[in-house]
């Protein structure tokens, strides 16, 4: 196929591509997947910074519970009267920090950005199956973000029942002030967000299934696409359940139903609700909530696979095993939600069953981690910032993953449930690991998004500050949890046994502040490089996948001419016999006779015969 040659004079391509684009249609209500990806990313980054600031606020409170910081009153007013954060506002901070990070940053910011950017690029499609739905997906997300931030300007404060919003705390406004208007806004925001996810998910799945270019069969898709595909399936099946949970909660709050409420005497007032069960909400919530952590971590795993393989200059080890383990995680993720509820009063036998399924899910996760290490083995590793973040991601995934074996074990969970051990566990395995996956994606695909390179040295600085910071913040928390310190505690001052941890809290908070300031290096680098970065070449990382065959300048429809056909899997790095250490997916086997193995032809007798002939002529000996 001649379509592999990409011309740089895309601008001269047929005039039918030239839509009359105004600022509004190009940058705001864009239907182009590349622009939408950037919108998702930048919104995600803004939300991440916001949520990070919230976390630093409550970290300050935890480290210095007896000190006043009058400057806080300047910014927070009555929520920090006298320079000290109030307990209710502290709970709002942890609630909104969690919600934003999990949903807006690590779900929309991560899979929204990279699914939009990479799905059409890497499978060879001109755009998404439905660009309009894609645009709507972003705008629902954007409105959800605005409403969530808006809840800070409500008299009674933002939602403060924890990101899991367990009723009755979230349902009864008299139990906590954040359950007034703030919670209503939370629920509205979340409903819009789920609409966004469903619109996005349908789009990703249909694009991947229907719009792959010629030759791109499922087993030739990069692992990124596999992970986005499976993530979208998980999201599509589980998010609607959260809608039902949220809608029933809205009914309980506003229309006097009793789905989740029963036998309540709140603040001395006997409530009329009867017959509901708070446990029902927990089942519905975690039916999404647990798959959600895989929605968060699977795209990060996909991005990491691609980056590690490219930068080790080696094929990803065990491609099929990687896909099967992703599939395994996808399936199992739906039947493990009960491990969040071992001590809620769920039938203990059921707890035992959930424990078995939970520990099974560790097997595919372990396979992935080992395969990453095997990929590094005897590689030729290039430490771009993206690669460092990918290695950091694997490190967090393992360090945080092993503690899951404690928490998945119902008997051990009795003592660890809802303590800092849990905080440490999920901040490492899904928080830090996913953020690192996302950042590794940003550094790696930045040239594709903006046509320029990011500054490498600032990238290194950012990596080391964040990597060390994250470990110093989260590793000590395990020990607090083992000691029995509960999460979401406003201060450790009321219990003699917790006092020893205040010194550790100071270390943690300083680490958080330094790591937080380290993000400035990223923000300067990210936004500065949009205009001032070095101009990118077409394939700066010498990568095999299709997106690097598109011109640097973004054009409508991605490829100026025909969409290239795909001839091989995406991981032909350092193939023996080839003069370069990478072979793009668009290069046909006929051009790489010197490096082909018989295995490549998957039993195509004719091709094997030709290859055999060629080998004989050129004295090349290959194992049969």
């Amino acid at each position, binding site marked *: 196929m001649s379509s592999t040659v990409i011309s740089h004079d895309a601008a001269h391509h047929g005039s039918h591509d030239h839509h009359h684009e105004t600022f509004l249609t190009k940058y705001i209500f864009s239907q182009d997947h590349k622009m939408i990806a950037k919108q998702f990313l930048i919104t995600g980054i803004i939300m991440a910074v916001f949520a990070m600031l919230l976390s630093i606020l409550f970290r300050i409170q935890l480290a210095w519970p007896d000190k006043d910081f*009058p*400057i806080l009153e*300047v910014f927070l007013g009555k929520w920090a009267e006298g320079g000290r954060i109030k307990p209710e506002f502290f*709970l709002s901070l942890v609630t909104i920090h969690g919600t934003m990070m999990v949903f807006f940053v690590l779900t929309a910011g991560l899979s929204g950005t990279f699914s939009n950017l990479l799905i059409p690029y890497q499978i060879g499609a001109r755009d998404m199956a439905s660009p309009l739905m894609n645009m709507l997906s972003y705008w629902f997300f954007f409105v959800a973000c605005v409403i969530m931030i808006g809840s800070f300007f409500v008299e009674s404060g933002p939602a403060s029942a924890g990101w899991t919003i*367990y009723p*009755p705390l979230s349902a009864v406004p008299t*139990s906590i002030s954040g359950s007034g208007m703030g919670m209503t806004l939370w629920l509205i925001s979340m409903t819009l967000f789920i609409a966004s996810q469903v619109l996005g998910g349908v789009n990703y799945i249909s694009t991947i299934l229907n719009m792959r270019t010629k030759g791109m069969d499922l087993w030739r898709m990069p692992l990124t696409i596999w992970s986005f595909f499976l993530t979208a399936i998980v999201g599509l099946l589980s998010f609607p359940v959260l809608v039902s949970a949220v809608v029933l909660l809205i009914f309980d709050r506003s229309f006097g139903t009793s789905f989740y409420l029963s*036998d309540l005497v*709140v603040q*001395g007032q*006997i409530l009329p609700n009867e017959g*509901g069960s*708070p446990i029902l909400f927990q089942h519905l919530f975690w039916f999404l909530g647990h798959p959600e952590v895989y929605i968060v971590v699977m795209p990060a795993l996909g991005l990491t696979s691609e980056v590690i393989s490219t930068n080790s200059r*080696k*094929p990803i080890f*065990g*491609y099929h095993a990687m896909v099967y383990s992703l599939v395994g995680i996808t399936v199992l993720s739906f039947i493990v939600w009960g491990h969040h509820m071992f*001590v*809620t009063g769920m039938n*203990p*036998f059921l707890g*035992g069953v959930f*424990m*078995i399924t939970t*520990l*099974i899910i560790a097997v595919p996760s*372990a*396979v992935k981690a*080992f395969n990453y*290490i095997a990929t*590094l083995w*005897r*590689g*030729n*590793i290039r*430490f771009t910032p993206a690669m*460092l973040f990918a*290695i950091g991601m694997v490190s967090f995934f*393992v360090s945080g993953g092993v503690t899951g074996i404690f928490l998945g*074990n119902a*008997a*051990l969970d*009795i*003592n660890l*449930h*809802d303590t800092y051990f849990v905080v440490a566990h999920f901040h490492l395995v899904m928080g830090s690991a996913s953020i690192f996956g996302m950042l590794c994606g940003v550094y790696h695909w930045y040239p594709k998004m903006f046509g320029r390179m990011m500054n490498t*040295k600032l990238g*290194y*600085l950012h990596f*080391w500050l964040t990597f060390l910071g994250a470990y110093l913040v989260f590793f*000590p928390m395990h020990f607090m949890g083992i000691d*029995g310190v*509960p999460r*979401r505690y406003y201060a450790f001052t*009321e*219990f*003699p*046994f917790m006092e020893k941890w205040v010194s550790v809290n100071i270390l943690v908070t300083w680490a958080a502040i330094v790591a937080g300031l380290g993000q400035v290096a990223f923000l300067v680098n990210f936004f500065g490089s949009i205009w001032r970065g070095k101009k990118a070449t077409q394939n700066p990382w010498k990568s095999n996948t299709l997106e690097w065959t598109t011109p640097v300048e973004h054009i409508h429809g991605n490829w100026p001419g025909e969409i290239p056909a795909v001839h091989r899997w995406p*991981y032909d790095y350092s*193939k023996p016999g080839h003069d370069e250490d990478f072979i793009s997916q668009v290069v046909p086997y006929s051009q790489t006779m010197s490096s082909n193995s018989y295995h490549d032809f998957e039993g195509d007798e004719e091709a094997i015969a030709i290859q055999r002939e060629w080998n004989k002529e050129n004295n090349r000996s290959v194992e049969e």
Partner: protein
Amino acid sequence: MKLKINNRFKSILGCLLLISLFFAAPVLAYQQDAVVVDTIAVEETSVSVGVEAVEADTVIAASSTSEVVSTGTAAVELKQIDPQVYKDFFYYVLLFLVICTVIAVIGKVISIYELTRKMNGKYNPLANNTLQAVLLLLFLIFFLWGVYYSYTVWGDWSWRDAVTEHGEKIDTMFIITLVITTFVMIVVHILLLSFAYIYRMRANRKAYFYPHNDTVEKIWTVVPAIVLTVLVLFGFFTWRSITSIPEDLQKSALQVEVLGEQFMWRVRYPGTDGEMGKRNYKLTTAENPYGIDFNDKNSWDDISGEHIVLPVGRSVRFHIISKDIIHSFYIPDFRVQINAVPGMTNYFQFTPTVTTEEMRDRMNDPKYDYVMLCNKICGSAHYNMQKKVVVVTEAEYKQWLSTQGKYFTEDLQKEFAQQNIEIEGITTASLN
């Protein structure tokens, strides 16, 4: 071109440094002033508060304070934020900017150094790559040291042996899991980071094309699967032994009920009859906050415990309920936790094995107490919702129990009697 960028950079840098110096010097001066200002401010407020109480006579203070007094209330004065706060804030912002500038200068110096190396033809394009590989190796050392340090120091702080029968089983399992997971974590990190170092990019080297090895992959699928199966079975049976207790043992145990509410716990012991009276949340009043139904005569001798006091070596069955929202009944030393959920009763049965006195000796802390705390977010005072737990000998327990008050207090008895008369009255009235 490069020169131009450099020039622009230099000018920006110069300006920044100038500006920061310009600001930093006065800010430092303010810092010193601040101490003085602060003390004055404190004087002002304290004096003005005092003045309000004792009226105008006390205006003996410095002239500055008299102004405050004349302008009015101390509350208004407190509302205003000391300008020093802003100065401090901007001081720290500037400090950060100075750090950024220093980092930028260092970055620029490095790139100038690299440029000169390039001009001299001595530039090694892989130098940075090697540096990062070395840093990863250093990180490995730091990581291993950190694991060792935290396990020995913080681990020592956090670990106390369980003081219940089932807790000992949990501890054994915890240690086994800890050994396995720590081993995996350390081995994986040694491999990950040392591979990163060993196989860093070198000129003229090609990676080894090694797409898969089915045998190896099978091994590292099956081995974790076996290890996890062992852990699952072990955990499953432990979990079952904790949670499914035979009915006769349930009945023979000491029964205690704990009710969680914002933000306190109430404890109810059955009286001499060994049975607790019924509770109906609709009967909750200010006098009867527990909502006990006194029509049920079992409730008449129910005892309200000031703390949770338990006899050592005896099986206790806790009935955990909630009055308003979800709380969690959590005693870390006992390895006991179950949520208090409104509308349903949860149970946890266990046997404490070490008295508080023995534990104090063991901890070498004469003030040490077991504590039960709320472990499910429940509102503003969630962080201070606790109840002391005391484990004593059987004799001490009986003695303690006899000193505790009853839920059916005299006031309630009177009210109850009154109510019954009224009800009778109403029924007779309606009959008429």
